[in-house]
């Protein structure tokens, strides 16, 4: 392999695709020379009298690893090592090698990674561990467009961003320290008691997140619905029917509800007030990552991690700005007029963009949240690549329409309320009329206004009701989390960061602690939280995690020194682990018991097997087809190999009843789905099924 003739400026990019974009923008002829080194694309650009060689990383090239190799805790000493050593699947060796080679001829270095904590850490570790330098110049950009890259190059900083770097390093240290020590402590406590080896890991942010899921489930398990009543009514005005809303949304007692119904028996009311009010609606704020993830879940059901992954691709294609941002601000310096002009050349958005340009108002409406490094997520105006896949197209469309809507005029709605009285009971008929659609037009179909026009009525005119009825209801339990609402919960509790939250939720799934679109803890998740709640609650409470997020924030703002923070965290961790050590047996024992219980509870026994008289009939799930059925446990006993099976309904919950069918003496099961509940004999040939009913003995 031939090396590149020195001297040159070495540019470090975060990813191969970013390296290509950076090189194309920085080369004066937009035709950087491509050079393959160890299969990695490296670019040589000419800019002024400088030769710039841009080489990519592939995200993180290094991982933290313990220095001492014993399997004990606490582990407080660590070092950075090439990630391919720690993780055999990491394909980082070639990338590391090329930086070692390129180090020799580089007389200057520019860090060109993403401008955030992680980008700073990625650049710094390459600089320090592969190039043997402490400092380098730093380019800061929010989009990978030519304009931004060139401007970032011209205005590049003389040094790395120390705040970002230290808070980024600190996050790695802290997460690693907590992760490895608690995983070891938990796993060892289990092994000490049971001899059983099972890795039980719980991270610093995963703990409280899992805690929230389990706590909610416990609340649901204890939920008692409470009765209440509503008054339902409808009126007819000019031959059209409208819903009328009773003055109280909720009636507490049956007596009261019936009383109201009786007092409104005449079904004749009088209009005692009509009001018209114009209401203004302003556009939603520009997208930050959390808002984009929520909106994308709402409309496309994409998980937060999937949305981030897609947004990242769009960023690398220079179609949108950097997505890991908290900001709802879009400063004028972004050049909105230019972006809108470029969008006007895209068929889908052309007419709306042109309309906005013609109004000549380029000051966007902003939200309150801001971010030190990046503006809100916005399109760059660059045309989408032709090979954009459907999901990328969806996220892009959402981002562009949100951006356009922010330049729209307010929407104006006329709210009309007709107030009606029967016997001193007040009802309202509500109508709304769109006077001006404003920004909503640009944001369709992600938001739209509903219109319901009610006729004009005179004061004191008679209104006839079609009915006034009380209806019994029962309070409903809180909803289980989905990935989007769990993300909200993490934001509310201030745990994790915009960049890490989606990944933490994914880890909970990957480790088998939670399951389902509607998220429920698994028996394992329950078992772990139960034990920690009793013996070691700090790990599943948000306080400690939140405090650490605050500390990282302070390090970023240079109000705290990283070395001091790391020392004090190690000290605290050591004392927490000493406490853990003292309780190790106790913790191990309850962990073992909980795990056993959770594993046992997966087996539902329906009754004794009538055929072999030895085994138990159990509900099992076929690994091949995923279908469930009832089978005898002696099937697995080689000497018996009883092969009795019965089919059962594919959905719904099934419970044993300990009762036998009087026709064939086989067990009766209880089947429940939604509000439906049925008792049935397990046999499909049972005579009771032909008669359409079940008779138990």
């Amino acid at each position, binding site marked *: 392999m031939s090396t590149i003739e020195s001297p040159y400026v070495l540019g470090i990019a975060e990813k191969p695709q970013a390296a290509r974009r950076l090189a194309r923008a920085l080369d004066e002829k937009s035709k950087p020379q491509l050079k393959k080194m160890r299969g990695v694309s490296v670019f040589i650009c000419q800019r002024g009298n400088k030769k710039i060689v841009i080489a990519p990383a592939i995200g993180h090239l290094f991982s933290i690893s313990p220095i001492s190799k014993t399997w004990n805790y606490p582990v407080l000493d660590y070092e950075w090592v090439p990630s391919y050593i720690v993780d055999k699947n990491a394909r980082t060796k070639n990338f590391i090698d090329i930086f070692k080679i390129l180090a020799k001829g580089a007389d200057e270095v520019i860090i060109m990674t993403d401008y955030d904590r992680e980008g700073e850490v990625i650049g710094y570790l390459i600089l320090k561990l592969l190039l043997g330098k402490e400092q380098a110049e730093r380019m800061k950009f929010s989009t990978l467009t030519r304009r931004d890259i060139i401007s970032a190059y011209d205005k590049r900083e003389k040094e790395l961003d120390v705040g970002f770097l230290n808070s980024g390093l600190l996050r790695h240290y802290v997460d690693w320290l907590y992760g490895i020590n608690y995983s070891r402590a938990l796993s060892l406590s289990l092994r000490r008691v049971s001899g059983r080896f099972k890795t039980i890991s719980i991270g610093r942010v995963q703990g409280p997140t899992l805690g929230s899921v389990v706590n909610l489930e416990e609340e*649901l*398990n*204890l*939920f*008692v*619905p*409470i*009765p*209440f009543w509503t008054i339902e009514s409808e009126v007819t005005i000019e031959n059209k029917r409208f819903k009328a809303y009773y003055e109280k949304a909720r009636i*507490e*007692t*049956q*007596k009261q509800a019936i009383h109201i119904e009786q007092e409104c028996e005449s079904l004749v009311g009088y209009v005692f007030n009509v009001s018209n009010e114009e209401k203004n609606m302003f556009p939603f704020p520009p997208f930050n990552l959390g808002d984009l993830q929520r909106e994308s879940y709402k409309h496309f059901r994409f998980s937060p991690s999937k949305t981030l992954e897609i947004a990242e691709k769009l960023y690398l294609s220079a179609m949108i700005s950097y997505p890991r941002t908290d900001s709802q601000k879009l400063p004028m310096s972004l050049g909105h007029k230019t972006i809108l002009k470029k969008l006007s050349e895209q068929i889908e958005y052309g007419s709306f963009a042109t309309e906005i340009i013609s109004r000549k108002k380029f000051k966007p409406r902003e939200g309150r949240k801001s971010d030190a490094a990046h503006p809100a997520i916005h399109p760059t105006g660059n045309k989408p690549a032709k090979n954009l896949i459907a999901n990328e197209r969806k996220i892009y469309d959402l981002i562009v329409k949100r951006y356009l809507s922010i330049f729209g005029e307010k929407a104006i709605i006329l709210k009309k309320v007709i107030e009606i009285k029967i016997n001193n009971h007040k009802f309202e008929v509500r109508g709304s009329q769109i006077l001006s659609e404003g920004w909503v037009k640009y944001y369709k179909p992600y938001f739209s206004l509903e219109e319901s026009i009610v006729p004009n009525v005179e004061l004191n005119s008679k209104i006839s009701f079609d009915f006034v009825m009380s209806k019994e209801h*029962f*309070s*409903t*339990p809180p909803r289980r989390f989905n990935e989007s609402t769990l993300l909200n919960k993490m934001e509310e509790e201030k745990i994790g960061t915009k960049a890490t939250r989606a990944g933490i939720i994914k880890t909970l799934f990957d480790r088998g602690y939670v399951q389902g679109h509607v998220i429920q803890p698994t028996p394992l998740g329950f078992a772990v939280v139960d034990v920690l709640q009793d013996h070691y609650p700090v790990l599943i409470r948000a306080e400690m995690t939140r405090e650490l997020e605050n500390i990282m924030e302070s390090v970023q703002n240079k109000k705290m020194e990283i070395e001091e923070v790391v020392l004090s965290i190690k000290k605290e961790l050591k004392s927490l682990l000493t406490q853990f050590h003292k309780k190790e047996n106790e913790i191990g024992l309850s962990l073992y018991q909980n795990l056993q*219980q959770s594993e046992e509870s997966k087996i539902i026994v329906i009754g004794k097997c009538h055929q072999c008289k030895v085994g138990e009939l159990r509900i099992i799930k076929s690994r091949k087809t995923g279908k469930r059925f009832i089978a005898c446990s002696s099937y697995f006993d080689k000497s018996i190999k009883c092969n009795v099976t019965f089919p059962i309904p594919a959905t719904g919950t099934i419970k044993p009843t300990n009762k036998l069918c009087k026709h064939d003496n086989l067990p009766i099961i209880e089947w*429940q789905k*939604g*509000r439906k*509940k049925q008792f049935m004999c397990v046999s499909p040939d049972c005579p009771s099924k032909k008669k359409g009913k079940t008779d138990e003995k």
Partner: protein
Amino acid sequence: MNENGKLCPICKVKKKNSMDKYCEKHNSAKKEMQKGYELWLKAYRVLSWDDYLHKLLNLSDSVGILVRDIAEYELYFKQN
């Protein structure tokens, strides 16, 4: 007291105190049900405990599973 007396009659988990009726979790469920009963009584004016349990079982979906356990146990399995 025999071994069985130390276990929750519903889930066979060890009780916290052998004087308790149920295990810790089922005990909390029972407490919630007693609180709920007060509110149901206010709502309907007349309602027996057993009727309350029947009604809870008919509501199925939203009733917590531990609550359901108690209602089933007290209605169908408890020997007085």
